[in-house]
C-alpha cells in the first residue's frame, strides 16, 4: 500500500532569494533518504518549506541476507556457537562454498520509521548560503529559527524531534490573516492554509500578482517579481502616486529608488516615459482604509526628496573638478587610489588608440564615486557620472561612455553603446585584472571578492561583440596565470553563452586566440562545415597523422618535401592535391577554406590505405613524415582538427 506524505518546516521569515535553491536541496536530500522519487514535489512561502510525496511505500520489501559462518570442517563447537549467535539450531544452517551459512530474513522497515529517523537530518542538512543558531551555542543551525514541523504520512504523524520541536499536525496561518495554530491533514492542508491567509503555491502567488498588475503598464521586472513572490504569503498589489515634480529627476534615479529600495514596480505612461505612479505589493489581503498606500507614498516622497537634495548638491561641483578627490578614495590598498587607477586607465585607453572622447571619458569615469548620490545609491555608479557629464555639457560620446563603462554587468547585459564606452570599459576591467593578479589576488573556487570573473567575462564579450581586433594576450601583459584565467572565460563565453560545441571551441582555441573576433569567425566556419560528410572523417585522419608523428617522435625539423622521392599513385596524388588546396586556402575565407581542406579526405584515406608510412628506406620514411607534418601544420591554423571528437 502506498501513502501520501507531507512535510512542512515552519520557520521565521527566510530571505526570499534563498528559498528556491533550498527547496531543490531539500528535495534531493529527501529522495536520497527514502531511496526514490515517489513523485516528491516542493513549494514554499517565506515562513514554510514544504515537501509532498504522492505515494511512498508503506514499508520496504523484506530482504534475505546470507550470513557466512565457519567452514564445514570446523569443530562442532564453532558451528554451534555460530548457530547460537544467529538464534537457530545447528540443523537449520545450510552449507555453501565450503561454509556454513544462515539465510537471515530482514523484515523491511516501515516508511514511518525510516522517515522518523531520517527527517531531522534531511531538514538540518538543507543547504543555505548562511545559517544561524538560535537555541544555544551547540544547537541546530538553519537559515532562521524553526518554529514548527508538520510531518504526516497518510493519516498519521511521523514522530520525531528536532531542535526541541516535536513534529505534529499543526501548521500556522498568515501572521495577520490567519490563526497561529492550524491543525491540518494531508487532504485539507492547502485549503486550510488558504483559509488562514496563506497561498502556498509560489506559482499561484506569482499569478495573483501578475493578474493584479496586468491593467497597469509597469516596467517589466522579472527579478523584482521573483523577490515579491517569496517575500509574501498573501500578495496583493496596490497602486500609489508621487508628485510629478519629481519627474525632473533622471528616470534612472527614480527607478532605482522604487525598485531597489522600496521594491515597487515603476509605471510607464502611454508614450513610454515614466508615469508618476508605482505599484507596491503588500503581504496582506487588502488596504481597506488606504493607509498602506498613504504610508508607501510618504516613504517614497522622503526618498525622492533625499535624491533630489543629493542631485542638486552634487551639481555644485563639476565632475572634472572632482578628479583630485579620487586620491582619497581607495581602489585597493596595494593598488592605490582611484586617482591612480584613473591614470592607468587613461594610459591604457591611449595605448588602445582611443580618441579624444574616450580619453576624456576615462578621466571622468570614476569621479562619481565622490558624489553624494552614488554614496547613497552605489548601484548607480557610472550611470550617475554619465548623467552629470551630460547635464554639465559633455558631448554624447563622452557622457554615454561614462554612463556605460561598467557594462556588461552580466552575460545578459549589453556591451557599452559606443566605441569610447567600449574602450573605457575594457581599460577599467583590464586594469583591475592585471592589478589584482600582480598582487596575488586570484579568485579561488567561489571566492572572488573583486569580481574578476565578471570583469574578464565582460572583457571577452566587449572584444567579440564590439568586434575589437585587439591582441588579447599582449593586453594581459604576459602574465601566465592571467592568460589561463582569461582563456577559461573565453572558452566559457563561446561554449556556454554562444552555444558552440566544446570540441570545436577547443579546436579553434588551440590554433590561437590572440584575436577574439577571428576566433569567432573560425568557430562559425567550423560549425558550418562540421555537418558535411568529409569533415569528421578528415578530422579523424588528422588525429591519426598526429599519432603517427608522435610515435615516430617526428617534429618536422625544418625539412622540405622531396617530390622526387614520392611514390607515384596515392602518395603523389595526395601531394598534388595538397598543393592545390594550399593555394586555394591561401586566398579563401575560412568557410570555403575548410571545405577545400575537407575535400582532401579521399586522398588522405587512399594514402593511408595504400601507402606504408613506416617505409624500410629511411629517406623515404623521412620524406613521408615530412609530407604528413607539413599537411598538418599548414591546415591547423584555422583549427586543430585533432581536437574534434569523432565517432570514427
Amino acid at each position, binding site marked *: 500500500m502506498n501513502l501520501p506524505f507531507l512535510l512542512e518546516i515552519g520557520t521565521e521569515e527566510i530571505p526570499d532569494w534563498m528559498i528556491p535553491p533550498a527547496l531543490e536541496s531539500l528535495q534531493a536530500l529527501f529522495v536520497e533518504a527514502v531511496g526514490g522519487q515517489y513523485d516528491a514535489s516542493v513549494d514554499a512561502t517565506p515562513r514554510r518549506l514544504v515537501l509532498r510525496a504522492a505515494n511512498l511505500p508503506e514499508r520496504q520489501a523484506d530482504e534475505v541476507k546470507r550470513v557466512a559462518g565457519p567452514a564445514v570442517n570446523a569443530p562442532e563447537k564453532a558451528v554451534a556457537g555460530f548457530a547460537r549467535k544467529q538464534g537457530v539450531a545447528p540443523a537449520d544452517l545450510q552449507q555453501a562454498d565450503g561454509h556454513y551459512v544462515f539465510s537471515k530474513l530482514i523484515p523491511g522497515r516501515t516508511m514511518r520509521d525510516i522517515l522518523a529517523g531520517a527527517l531531522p537530518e534531511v531538514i538540518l542538512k538543507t543547504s543555505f548560503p548562511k545559517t*544561524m*543558531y538560535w537555541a544555544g*551555542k551547540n544547537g541546530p543551525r538553519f537559515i532562521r529559527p524553526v518554529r514548527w514541523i508538520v510531518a504526516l504520512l497518510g493519516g498519521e504523524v511521523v514522530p520525531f524531534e528536532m531542535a526541541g520541536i516535536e513534529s505534529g499536525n499543526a501548521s500556522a496561518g498568515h501572521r*495577520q490573516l490567519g490563526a497561529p495554530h492550524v491543525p491540518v491533514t494531508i487532504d485539507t492542508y492547502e485549503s486550510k492554509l488558504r483559509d488562514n491567509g496563506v497561498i502556498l503555491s509560489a506559482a499561484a502567488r506569482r499569478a495573483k500578482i501578475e493578474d493584479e498588475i496586468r491593467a497597469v503598464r509597469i516596467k517589466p521586472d522579472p527579478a523584482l517579481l521573483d523577490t515579491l513572490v517569496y517575500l509574501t504569503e498573501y500578495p496583493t498589489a496596490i497602486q500609489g502616486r508621487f508628485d510629478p515634480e519629481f519627474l525632473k529627476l533622471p528616470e534612472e534615479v527614480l527607478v532605482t529608488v522604487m525598485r531597489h529600495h522600496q521594491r515597487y514596480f515603476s509605471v510607464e505612461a502611454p508614450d513610454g516615459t515614466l508615469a508618476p505612479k508605482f505599484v507596491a505589493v503588500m*503581504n*496582506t489581503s487588502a488596504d*481597506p482604509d488606504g493607509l498602506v498606500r498613504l504610508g508607501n507614498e510618504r516613504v517614497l516622497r522622503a526618498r525622492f526628496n*533625499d535624491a533630489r537634495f543629493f542631485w542638486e548638491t552634487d551639481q555644485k561641483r563639476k565632475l572634472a573638478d572632482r578628479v583630485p578627490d579620487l586620491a582619497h*578614495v581607495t581602489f585597493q590598498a596595494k593598488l592605490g587610489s582611484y586617482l591612480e587607477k584613473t591614470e592607468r586607465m587613461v594610459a591604457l585607453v591611449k595605448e588602445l588608440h582611443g580618441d579624444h572622447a574616450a580619453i576624456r571619458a576615462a578621466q571622468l569615469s570614476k569621479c562619481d564615486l565622490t558624489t553624494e548620490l552614488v554614496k547613497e545609491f552605489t548601484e548607480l555608479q557610472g550611470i550617475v557620472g554619465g548623467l552629470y557629464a551630460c547635464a554639465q555639457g559633455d558631448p554624447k560620446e563622452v557622457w554615454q561612455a561614462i554612463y556605460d563603462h561598467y557594462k556588461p554587468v552580466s552575460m545578459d547585459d549589453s556591451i557599452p553603446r559606443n566605441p569610447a564606452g567600449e574602450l573605457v570599459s575594457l581599460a577599467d576591467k583590464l586594469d583591475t585584472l592585471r592589478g589584482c593578479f600582480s598582487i596575488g589576488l586570484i579568485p579561488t573556487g567561489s571566492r572572488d571578492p573583486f569580481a574578476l570573473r565578471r570583469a574578464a567575462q565582460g572583457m571577452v564579450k566587449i572584444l567579440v561583440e564590439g568586434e575589437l581586433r585587439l591582441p588579447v594576450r599582449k593586453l594581459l601583459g604576459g602574465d601566465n596565470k592571467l592568460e589561463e584565467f582569461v582563456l577559461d572565460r573565453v572558452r566559457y563565453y563561446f561554449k556556454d553563452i554562444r552555444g558552440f560545441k566544446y570540441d570545436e571551441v577547443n579546436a579553434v582555441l588551440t590554433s590561437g586566440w590572440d584575436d577574439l573576433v577571428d576566433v569567432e569567425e573560425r568557430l562559425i566556419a567550423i560549425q558550418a562545415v562540421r555537418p558535411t560528410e568529409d569533415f569528421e572523417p578528415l578530422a579523424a585522419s588528422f588525429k591519426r597523422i598526429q599519432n603517427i608523428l608522435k610515435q615516430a617522435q617526428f617534429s618536422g625539423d625544418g625539412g622540405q618535401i622531396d617530390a622526387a622521392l614520392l611514390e607515384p599513385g596515392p602518395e603523389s596524388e595526395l601531394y598534388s592535391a595538397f598543393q592545390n588546396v594550399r593555394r586555394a586556402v591561401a586566398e579563401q575565407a575560412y568557410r570555403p577554406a575548410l571545405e577545400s581542406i575537407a575535400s582532401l579526405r579521399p586522398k588522405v584515406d587512399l594514402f593511408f590505405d595504400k601507402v606504408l608510412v613506416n617505409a624500410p628506406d629511411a629517406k623515404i620514411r623521412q620524406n613521408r613524415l615530412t609530407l604528413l607534418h607539413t599537411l598538418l601544420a599548414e591546415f591547423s591554423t584555422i583549427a586543430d582538427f585533432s581536437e574534434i571528437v569523432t565517432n570514427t
Partner: protein
Amino acid sequence: MDSYQELIFKLKKYWSDRDCIIQEPYDLEVGAGTMCPETFLRVLGPKPYRVAYVQPSRRPADGRYGENPNRLYKHMQLQVLLKPSPNDVIEQYLGSLGAIGIDLRKHDIKFEEDNWESPTLGAWGVGWQVMLDGLEITQFTYFQQCGGIDLDLVPAELTYGLERLAAFLQVKDSIYDVEWGGGATYRDVRFNDELQFSVYNFEMADVPTLWKLFELHEGEAARLLKLYDPKSADKARFPLLPAYEHVLKCSHLFNTLDSRGAISVTERVAVIARVRKVAVGVAGAWMDQQSTGVEPPKAEAEAVR
C-alpha cells in the same frame, strides 16, 4: 494621537510588562544602543537577561544641519534585548506595535533580510529590517557573535527607530514636526543640537586634537587590559567597565574623524582594527571575570536574613 514621549512610555511599559529591566540611556556617546554595556557585555556568557532602554545614538556623518526632514546626527533608538530569545519573540514584537496603536490588520508588515555586522565590535548577527507600509521601523537581530566570542545564549535584539515611528504615527513628513509632548515639537527640543553638532563635526572639529584624544583613550584602554590578570584572586574588582568606556570614546572619535573626512579608506580598515582590538580585549576579559561567579552583594535586609 500619542506624542513622542507617550510613544516611548508605551513601549517601555510594554517591555516592562514582559519582564524587562527598564534601563536609562548610557551616559556616553555611542553610535547605537548595541554598544552600551547593557547590550555589548550582557550578551556575553550564560546568564539570561532582559532589558529595554532608549539610547540617543550619534552618527556624525548623518548630520544635516537640521535641514533634512529624515536624517539626524543624533537619533533615538529603543533598544530591547531578550536573552535568550523567546520562541514567540516575533509575536511579542508585533504585540508591541499593537500597543502603540498600530492595527496590523490595516497595515502591511514585511520582514526583509538584513544581517547586521559591526567590525569595530567584532560582532554580527542575522535578522531583518521590519518594514511597515514600506518604512523601515525596526532592526531585528539574532546575535551570533560579540567581541569575537560565539554567544552561549542567542539574544534577540530589537531596535526601534523612535523618530520614524513617531512621524509615522503622527503622519508627519518631517521628523522636526513631530509633537514631542508638553506642546513642544521635536524641532523645539533638538534643532540646535543638530545644527551645532553638524557644524562642529563637518567644519570645525580639530583633526589633530581628535587624533590625540583617540590615542589617549586607546592607550588607556590598552593599559588597563594589560593589567588585567585572570589568575588574580581580586579580579572581580578590576575596572573593565571603565576600560570599555575608553573603547566607546575611541569608537565615537573614529566616527567624528570620519565625518570630518580625516580618514582615508585605506586608513579606515587599520583604525577599525585598532578599536576592534581593544573591544575584543574587553569582551574576552569580561567573560573571564564573569566566570568567577562573584555576584553583587545582596541587599542588606536579605543579607541579614
